[in-house]
């Protein structure tokens, strides 16, 4: 599923980033451009969840 609609990012894309070593909240936010003003801010607020997905700790959301 799409995790971030502002950036059009899927769950798998975030997992892939994690595999490439983008694992901490700051790096993820930066890599995905979540600090840009055209983002709604939802993902930045939920960055812990995104981080957990990158770290492979979340079972597929749409299971």
């Amino acid at each position, binding site marked *: 599923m799409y995790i971030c609609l502002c950036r059009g990012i*899927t769950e798998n894309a975030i997992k892939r980033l994690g595999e490439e070593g983008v694992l901490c909240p700051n790096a993820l936010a930066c890599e995905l451009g979540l600090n840009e003003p055209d983002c709604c801010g*939802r993902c930045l607020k939920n960055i812990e969840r995104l981080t957990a997905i990158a770290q492979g700790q979340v079972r597929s959301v*749409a299971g």
Partner: protein
Amino acid sequence: MKAKEGVVNVLNKVLTADLTAINQYFVHAKMCENWGYERLHHKVRERSISEMKDADELIGHILYLDGVPNVQRMNAVQVGETVLEQLKLDLKAEQEMLTLLSEGVVHCTKVTDFTTRHMLEDMAEDVDEHIDWIETQLETIKQVGVENYLAEQIKKES
């Protein structure tokens, strides 16, 4: 008319879920159209429009109760990448909606607002039907496989 305690709050919560659902179903419908799944496109689009009618009713009722409809708030729109994901995410949204409506019905009973209660009960009935429809689709997919199911969706509704 002055609202009973907490009723506008309940209605606004349902409205939030509803506005979210309108967008979720609408984008799912358009994705299905883009993939050529005519049948699903129509069905899901219909669903989005019926949510819009609910929003119409909710906003009207909130105004009638001298409340302010919060059209600004939305939950996260859960967009699936495939039809199967979409169905599962829509099911989740409908189940959450049903919980919200049930809580609303309980609250309205407590504060004796029977008009609002009936409205929420009608909406819950609709949600029940939709849940039933999605569960049938998921069961069919389990039985015939997703490819066969999708092949059926390409045809126009006759």
